[in-house]
């Protein structure tokens, strides 16, 4: 690292309004000392701290100060720049909440270059495994690591491998499940696009451990870039002797193929996925027998999620012990989440297990968009549930989330604010499952449809209190009697919203009102005369000219014209519009 001039990076992490003022003051202070050419002050857009007042980071010393007031500036320049010392009372130790194992190379290496991957310890895990040439040891190492399936189920990976390994047959398969279908989730896509070799290396190691000669990557066709990068990676691995016959000069041979999913959500379920690869209709079948015993074309098959496989090479290279020290005692390692929704920093994050939702939303996500009030977080997609604000201190692991009625899932995490109606959310997710149900079993096919009708009644003001009881009853039936995970979990979003937001359901049913302004028939926008300051902003903003009146006589919303877009509500500074 070459030496460079000192740099002061600054940012007002609360409103952003004070950044410019502080910037000028720093410049003045430096100018007074004749340092303006030796030190650069720079306003940054994001300094990795949120709601900590004005934050400054000094490079190359890497010192971070928070809650800086105007009166502190001279001190900082005097002590930190001139004297090379630190201002102790403002100093913080910036700890990154994230930890990158799966995403270790994403955004760092060129995903289309195997040489780049090799430079970053690529295929060293595989080399170690083949050198030791001990299948039991691979599984033992995984057992020590405590790695569990990252697709959502959380089944111990070593156990799955061990079941397949102990089957006495020549033909076995390994499948990578890249059929990512949850709304708002894109973890697998990012890994496949950003670091395809890490998944391939994981698959080769898995194949060696269980004794498979052939593997498939099942990727949804909606990910063309991921597919082309994986194709390229497979080709390169062949050229380097890492795939095909006699891998790394040993007598172990293994090859990979890609199979495209046509976008059916149910094909993420392992038995349906297998049917799809076999060229049959993507319908699940009852388990047991599990795929590890009777899978693809009746042969023992291990199906692992993209993220699980991306973990493997690192575990084998650095040892299971080191991996098991990350996260919590019961739940080792990290988890990738796609943090989206009403959060300032929508991002793909990887965190060690055991940190809280609060840390994710506020320290990494930067808080809620537009300073609205947060209502809940949805995890686990259509199979998961919503978690209200009072449980944001819950540690993230498989058990913690399950206790709240949600699931870890594959890693979608959607933040919801006061403008999100919980009945509407439940309806959205249920509709998704109804659309995606394969229709094979009655509980899912009929139950889902009935529940959706009941929810529609609630959201359109035709419901009675019996509706809630019926919803609960059908949910139970679906959980117990559905054939696969899709039906068994489809009611989770409904059940958790009912559990945590019963009041909101009551408002819809009894008062026939939707305070969040989502269920169109259950609210109208009105101007509250007492609060209206006659500014006319709402009238200007209305896209359909539904606001009559003028600045002298006040305004009124013409309900016949109003399309309930909510722009007047958002634009009014005096909260003079109700819904």
């Amino acid at each position, binding site marked *: 690292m070459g030496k460079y001039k000192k740099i002061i990076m600054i940012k007002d992490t609360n409103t952003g309004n004070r950044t410019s003022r502080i910037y000028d003051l720093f410049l003045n202070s430096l100018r007074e000392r004749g340092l303006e050419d030796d030190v650069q002050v720079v306003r940054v857009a994001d300094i990795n701290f949120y709601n900590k007042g004005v934050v400054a980071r000094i490079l190359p010393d890497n010192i971070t100060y928070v809650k800086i007031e105007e009166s502190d500036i001279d001190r900082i320049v005097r002590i930190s720049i001139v004297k090379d010392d630190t201002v102790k009372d403002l100093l913080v130790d910036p700890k990154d909440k994230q930890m990158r194992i799966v995403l270790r190379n*994403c955004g760092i290496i060129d995903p289309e270059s195997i040489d780049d991957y090799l*430079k970053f310890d690529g295929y060293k895990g595989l080399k170690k495994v083949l050198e030791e040439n001990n299948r039991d040891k691979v599984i033992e190492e995984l057992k020590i690591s405590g790695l569990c399936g990252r697709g959502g189920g959380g089944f111990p990976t070593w156990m799955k491998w061990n079941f397949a390994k102990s089957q006495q047959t020549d033909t076995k398969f390994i499948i990578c499940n890249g059929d990512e279908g949850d709304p708002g989730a894109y973890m697998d896509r990012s890994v496949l696009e950003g670091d395809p070799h890490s998944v391939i290396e994981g698959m080769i190691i898995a194949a060696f451990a269980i004794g498979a000669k052939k593997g498939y990557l099942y990727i949804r066709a909606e990910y063309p*870039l991921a597919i082309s990068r994986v194709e390229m990676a497979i080709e390169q691995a062949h050229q380097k002797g890492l795939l095909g016959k006699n891998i790394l000069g040993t007598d172990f041979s293994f090859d990979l193929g890609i199979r495209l999913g046509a976008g059916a959500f149910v094909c993420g379920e392992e038995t349906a996925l297998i049917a799809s690869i076999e060229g049959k209709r993507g319908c699940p079948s009852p388990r047991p027998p599990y795929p590890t015993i009777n899978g693809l074309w009746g042969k023992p098959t291990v199906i692992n999620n993209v993220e699980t496989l991306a973990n493997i090479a690192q575990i084998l290279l650095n040892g299971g012990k080191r991996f098991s020290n990350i996260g919590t005692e019961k739940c080792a390692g990290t988890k990738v989440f796609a943090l989206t929704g009403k959060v300032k920093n929508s*991002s793909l994050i990887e965190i060690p297990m055991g940190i809280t939702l609060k840390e994710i939303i506020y320290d990494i996500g930067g808080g809620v968009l537009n300073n609205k009030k947060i209502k809940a977080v949805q995890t686990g997609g259509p199979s998961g549930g919503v978690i209200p604000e009072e449980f944001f201190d819950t540690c993230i692991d498989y058990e913690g989330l399950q206790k709240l009625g949600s699931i870890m899932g594959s890693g979608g995490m959607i933040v919801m604010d006061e403008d999100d109606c919980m009945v509407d959310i439940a309806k959205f997710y249920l509709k998704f499952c109804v659309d995606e149900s394969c229709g094979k079993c009655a509980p899912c096919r009929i139950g889902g449809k009935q529940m959706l009708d009941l929810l529609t009644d609630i959201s359109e003001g035709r419901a009675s209190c019996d509706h809630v009881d019926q919803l609960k009853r059908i949910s139970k039936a679906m959980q117990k009697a559905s054939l696969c995970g899709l039906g068994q979990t489809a009611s989770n979003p409904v059940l958790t919203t009912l559990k945590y937001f019963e009041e909101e359901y009551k408002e819809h049913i009894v008062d026939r009102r939707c305070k969040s302004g989502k269920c169109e028939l259950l609210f109208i926008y009105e101007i509250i005369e007492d609060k209206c300051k006659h500014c006319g902003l709402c009238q200007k903003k209305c896209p359909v000219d539904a606001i009559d009146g003028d600045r002298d006589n006040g305004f009124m919303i013409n309900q016949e014209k109003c399309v309930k877009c909510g722009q007047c509500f958002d634009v009014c500074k005096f909260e003079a519009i109700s819904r």
Partner: protein
Amino acid sequence: MTKLTLKNFDQETSKEEKEIKNWVKVGMSTCGIAAGADVVMETIKKAVKENGLDIKVIKTGCVGKCYAEPLVEVKVENMPQVMYGKVDADIANLIIQQHIIGKKLLNDCIYLVAVKDGKNG
């Protein structure tokens, strides 16, 4: 391409390659491209060529800061490694002129990822 074996693995993969001192990385996953990373990539490549700069332009995957796409990470000698976000063609040109040639960081465009200078995440 030489096939790797257990024997030649270390030798082949640790071949002395001249360390790249100056580089620009552009996040080119679906997310980045959707936000306009391809235009940024073209702009940077063109500017590097026009100015005859000794800079390697590298295509990478997504680093995870989705809200700030397209992302451009820059490392040149005697400057800290920084990540620019919400880059468009204009900002890309500024990065070349002001940061890479002028050795001055741009205001209002930096999104810090690294806690430690020179090392990611």
